[in-house]
């Protein structure tokens, strides 16, 4: 712990003086409790000013760790995008990690993620609809979000693109044809999006994400996990330990395997 945590936390407290630090028996996070107010606007939607009572567990390892947020004023019902543990479901893991690690600090992250969530809920209450939609829950939501991130419509293609993030260590050959099948060089196709993912997420996080996607079904066809596992990229990177990753994926906190159909 040191100057980064201190200055990040200080900026959050300066930005929202009604959030206050609460002493607690926890060495890895600080609890911030109180009112988070905002005035926000989204293209095509009206400006909304609102305030919510929140409890935020802000990790000392931010942005490596992500803040866990609870609404404690009783306004957001459990039926609206709330995780089983009571925290607000602010977005998919990979999306939140990318934002946290690309955002210019904790204030920017909270504005981008928490304010937009609360804006979305206020919008729903005032106008009867969500301003920018939402995702399905669970794995399906993560797939939808990956498709939307890569701007593709097939899970197999998203899986191929994600696979290209796995060859960590070796730089991407930007003149190679893009794995999305466009026959255009990576540099002028999905190269930037792949690069951004590689910058933001760790090797392990990317492997977990890819493995999760690789095990999903698309168009009735189960992707051959073994063939992916044997792919040259994985072998080349060598440090990826499949058994361990599979274990980690299954044991992610809050993660539940879909029941087999």
């Amino acid at each position: 712990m040191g100057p980064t945590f201190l200055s990040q936390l200080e900026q959050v407290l300066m930005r929202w003086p009604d959030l206050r630090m609460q002493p607690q028996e926890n060495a890895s996070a600080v609890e911030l409790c109180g009112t988070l107010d905002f005035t926000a606007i989204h293209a095509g939607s009206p400006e909304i000013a609102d305030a919510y009572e929140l409890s935020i567990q802000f990790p000392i390892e931010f942005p490596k760790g992500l803040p866990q947020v609870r609404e404690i004023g009783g306004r957001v019902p459990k039926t609206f995008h709330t995780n089983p543990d009571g925290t607000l479901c602010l977005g998919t893991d990979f999306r939140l990690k990318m934002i946290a690690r690309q955002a210019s600090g904790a204030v920017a992250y909270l504005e981008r993620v928490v304010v937009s969530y609360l804006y979305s809920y206020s919008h729903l209450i005032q106008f009867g609809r969500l301003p920018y939609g939402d995702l399905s829950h669970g794995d399906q939501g993560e797939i939808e979000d990956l498709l939307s991130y890569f701007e593709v419509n097939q899970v197999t293609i998203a899986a191929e693109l994600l696979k290209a993030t796995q060859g960590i260590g070796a730089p991407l050959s930007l003149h190679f044809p893009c794995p999305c099948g466009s026959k255009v060089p990576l540099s002028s196709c999905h190269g930037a999006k792949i690069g951004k993912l590689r910058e933001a997420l760790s090797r392990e996080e990317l492997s977990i994400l890819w493995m999760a996607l690789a095990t999903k079904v698309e168009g009735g066809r189960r992707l051959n996990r073994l063939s992916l596992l044997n792919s040259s990229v994985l072998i080349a990177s060598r440090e990826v330990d499949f058994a361990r990753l599979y274990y980690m994926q299954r044991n992610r906190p809050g993660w539940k395997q879909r029941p087999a159909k």
Partner: protein
Amino acid sequence: MLIETEIPVLDELQHRLDIPASYYEKSVERYKAIGEWLCREASTVRDFAPDIYSHGSFRLGTVIHPLSREGAYDLDLVCCINLNTGEVSQKDLKQLIGREIELYAERFSISAPVDESPRCWRLDYADELSFHMDILPCVPRPTDVRAQAQEGAYSGSVLITDNRLSNYAQLSPQWLTANPLGIGSWFESRCITTHLFEAKMAQKSIAEVPAYTWKTPLQKAIQVLKRHRDRTFRDNPEFAPSSMIITVLAALAYKGTVTLTDSLNDILSDFTAGLTSRGCRLPNPTNQEEDFAEKWKLRPALETNFFSWLAQARSDIMNLATVQRFSESVSLAKKAFDVDLAGRQQLRPSSELPATGPTVIVSPPKPWERK
């Protein structure tokens, strides 16, 4: 020509935390009375030249009012008996002084029981002012090479008792050391770095004027920080950083600035500079082997709470120093310090802050949840 200057809000706040000089005088009366008791005809320690003096915030001049009206003032006392570790065990020394304190309490009809802590006796003494007196039994530390090396410029080390030690009841030379006098002198030397103060004190020797009358910016800054700590940890005092940690870090970070606002700014910007990353986290400036933050190792949450409190203090103090509207400073002082500034004259014209624009939401993450 007289120029009317407004009192900065932090000075006003500090003013409300500070105790009157008469309280310090009262504290001196209190411990002198105990000293006289220990020297009375029938005293069992009379022959061992008992010496009693204060350390802690009454010595340093950093006492503040307790949060609640019923709260007591902590008066930390050293009770040094001229014996050596070859003549008395820690337990015998502790009991010797404990009995005298009991008799004192009886004689002056103090109804609260004399409480024992690992190193001290606590006596609650209340008339018009309530004191928690923590009395630290000790013997002088023999001056040897090691002691001199540890103390450096700050002599006056003592050997203290601790009933958690295995040799507590035995005759043993292995006692814990402490240097309450040394910390006092070290702190005083940090206080007098302001030119203003040097000029003011030019005619008198420091020893003639007790530190509590000095009111240097460093002392005032520590008062403000301690109160912020008290308020923040009101419901969870076990997580609060100790007054010693706050005092030493503030004294180390202090750069000799003259106004309270500037001093707080300097101190808070550099507050963690005194922490080291290995060995002692916060070495006692008068004994590098003693770690004032030793509890952090056993309970890491204390360190997280310390850093979180510091971020909160920086934010609150910076906000308070720069806030434009009077009403905002009142509510912030109440919330962050539990201090009522409402009686304060409205010195600044309330100017409207420029409105900040709305947050523009661009490509937000869509709400999602792990199933």
